[in-house]
């Protein structure tokens, strides 16, 4: 099993005729993703890499049937309208790739999503990848490299990875794989402060996934995602081992470090606060990123020992 994406999910690409949409459609298909349709207003009737293009999401659904996930590759300022269009057409899960989506647009998408019981990953996400199955977004680069970098799940030795940084999602996957650890799914939740599917929500999905044995987190300063994850673990809602690294120990308050979520404001979202909350909840927090694979191996060994 895996979470969010596998080879059976029917994927739509909004903005498929753009430079990025086109290139990523090809890469997603090469990796095994079932891309069934694309959308670009005014480009209906064309095809991209053999994928039929429609003017509207509702037309695509009418013609080719249900869509499980829409991957949005339109320019940042058009993301709000594209997302609302997909949600209103009945799509229940969206992946919003673009960086620089205005905050109040993201909140509007969230509000419309709640009305329609739909959710979204991102904005500002590299995507989600389930090794050996499929990927959505821009994660993994070339298919052959991605297959080489990320191990498929191994019974009893498999982790799910949740990261607030795109580059570090791949990094975690690569270093854990090199240490002989299997990966169920890699999830980049997105770098922005308001995102659709934050770390605690993804952790709950991994908790339900029988293939995932432990959960690896690349967290960052700012916001409350790590603290909320700690709360879930304290409440007994997450019982699988959590192994985390939190970036930004050296960050000073008030300056944003690259992306929108990573900023300490009014003393909230500090490195120390996050580390303490997670440790108090029983999670392992490594001080140096290079220690992560060994800490995961230790956690897995402990699990197997207690299973015997």
């Amino acid at each position, binding site marked *: 099993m895996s979470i969010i994406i596998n080879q059976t999910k029917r994927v739509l690409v909004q903005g498929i005729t753009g430079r990025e949409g086109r290139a990523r459609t090809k890469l997603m298909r090469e990796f095994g993703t079932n891309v069934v349709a694309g959308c670009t207003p005014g480009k209906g009737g064309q095809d991209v890499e053999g994928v039929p293009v429609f003017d509207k999401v509702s037309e695509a659904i009418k013609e080719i049937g249900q869509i499980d996930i829409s991957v949005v590759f339109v320019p*940042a*300022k058009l993301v709000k309208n594209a997302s609302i269009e997909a949600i209103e057409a009945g799509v229940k899960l969206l992946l919003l790739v673009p*960086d620089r989506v*205005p*905050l*109040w*647009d*993201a*909140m*509007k998408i*969230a*509000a419309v999503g709640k009305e329609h019981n739909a959710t979204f990953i991102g904005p500002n996400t590299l995507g989600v990848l389930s090794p050996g199955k499929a990927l959505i977004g821009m994660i*993994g*680069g070339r298919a052959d*490299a991605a297959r080489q*970098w990320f191990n498929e799940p191994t019974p009893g030795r498999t982790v799910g990875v949740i*990261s*607030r*940084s*795109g*580059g*570090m999602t*791949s*990094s975690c996957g*690569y*270093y854990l794989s*090199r240490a002989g650890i299997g990966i169920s799914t890699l999830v980049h939740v997105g*770098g922005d*402060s*308001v*995102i*659709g599917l*934050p770390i605690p929500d993804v952790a709950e999905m991994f908790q339900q996934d029988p293939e995932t044995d432990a959960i690896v987190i*690349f967290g*960052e*300063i700012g916001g*409350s*995602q790590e603290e909320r994850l700690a709360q879930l673990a304290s409440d007994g809602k997450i019982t699988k081992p959590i192994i985390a*690294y939190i*970036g*930004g*120990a*050296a*960050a*000073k*308050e*008030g*300056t*944003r*470090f*690259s*992306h*929108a*979520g*990573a900023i300490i*404001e*009014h003393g909230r979202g500090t490195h120390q606060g996050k580390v303490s909350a997670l440790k108090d909840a029983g999670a392992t927090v490594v001080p*140096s*990123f*290079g220690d992560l694979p060994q800490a995961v191996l230790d956690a897995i060994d402990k699990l197997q020992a207690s299973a015997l």
Partner: protein
Amino acid sequence: MARLHEYQAKAVLSRFGIKVPLGKAAQTASEASSIAEEIAAKVIIKVQAWITGRAAKGGIQFADSPGQAKQIAEKLLEMKFGNFPVCEILVEQAIDIKDELFVSIAIDDAKQAPMLLLDAKGGSGIEDRADTVAVIPIDLEYGVDSETVRKVLVDSPIDAANHDALIDAIGKIVDAAKQCEARSLEVNPLVTTKQGEIVAADCRMTIDDYAVFRHPELGIEIARELDHPPTKLERIAYDVEQADHRGTFYFAQLPTDEEKSSKGLIGFHGAGGGGSMMSMDAVSSIGFTLANFCDTSGNPSAAKVYRAARIILAQPNLVGYFGSGSGVASQEQYHSAYGLAKAFWELQLAIPAVIRLGGNSEDRAVEILQDGCKNLPTTIEGYKKDDTPAFIAKRFAELVTANGSRSWTAPARNIPDFVGNDKSYSFAIEGGTVWIDHKNCNEQTSTFVVSNSSELLTLNDNSKPITTVSEEDLANKDSEMIALEIECRRNATPVVFVDLPISGLDPDSRLLTPDPFLPCQ
């Protein structure tokens, strides 16, 4: 700057119909004195700086006369918080406060929605009273429910005669936050005066960086959240980013005067948000102080990486240059290697540099960096994805120590003699000029140049390299030309130079003041 000063935020509130005290911002003491004269009443003078607890730090004072205002203004304009100077002060009429409220709009990341925070006590120390603050959800369409606000007021000691006017003002503040797409808006305090008016006595407002493009009316110059007014270098960097959208480029200077036991000030060049932050932690944890935080990622051009390195190295008194990102970049890393090699050569880098170039084509990238810099008077080492940030940080410390922890300030850039010479061949590219030293191009060299030119150059009748494509097609080939320049240098035939002057730094980098934080713009 996506963070507004108090006086700018008050101007915004005023446009939304909220009353603010009579006053104006001043940059000099005499301006402050004439504003006080105009007001012709007791004034309050406030430093315009993004810090908390301004009053306790002496940044807020009262004056009874224009003369006293001048004296106080002089003192306030000399203040510095961290590395960041006070450049402006706000001179306002003092108000007779009757009741105070804390009003704040913040984005709740868990609820994915804006929230109104309300406390009937207001004033300072609000951070310590978090439990007494009412949190009221804001609907994106309809704003805030006035009856919920009324309930908070009814439960407070505030005079009931003012409740309707306060509810109206709070509604307008919420509207201002929404219309301006604020990430946060805090009016602390919103006051009722003894004359029965509702006045915003203070205001802090931060606009969402990503929405700044929709708000030209706010006059925001740099859509970037910093804890200080943009420095000269940050402005230069921002211009570079705006001019080249291939990949992202983020540059911020950090306060550096706090660490006494530091191993020294370093130039920091990360790649990718999380990877940069992790690398910053690794190098900070072994005792270095970062002069800046920089991130070039998302497949940046060689020219962008070159300009970033030049800007990082425009900071004085560095003991080393540390570069590291996520370690497993999906972008082709040799573009970055070419950009760095060019910057290091031009400035004749004399402090150690350690760069982790892990990711696609990392072997080639490391070879380009090390070989392209082999004649420089320092050690430059490239590392790959299997080298951890902690390991390369340790290696960096060893090299800095071996160099005697000597600090260094970059000289003006090194430009070969054939540049600008009328015997040389040249053509324009985006943001600069490519120069080829035809005089020193023998047949063998010319053939080498052409074969390393990504098919953009060919031999002319005299067997010298010239362009083979249109000016338009050449314009964005700066990365290819930088690669050619480095390859020629590696081949010991340095006949190509790409001149990419950076506005504000070049042609004479000595134009830069020794303290890049200093100038109040």
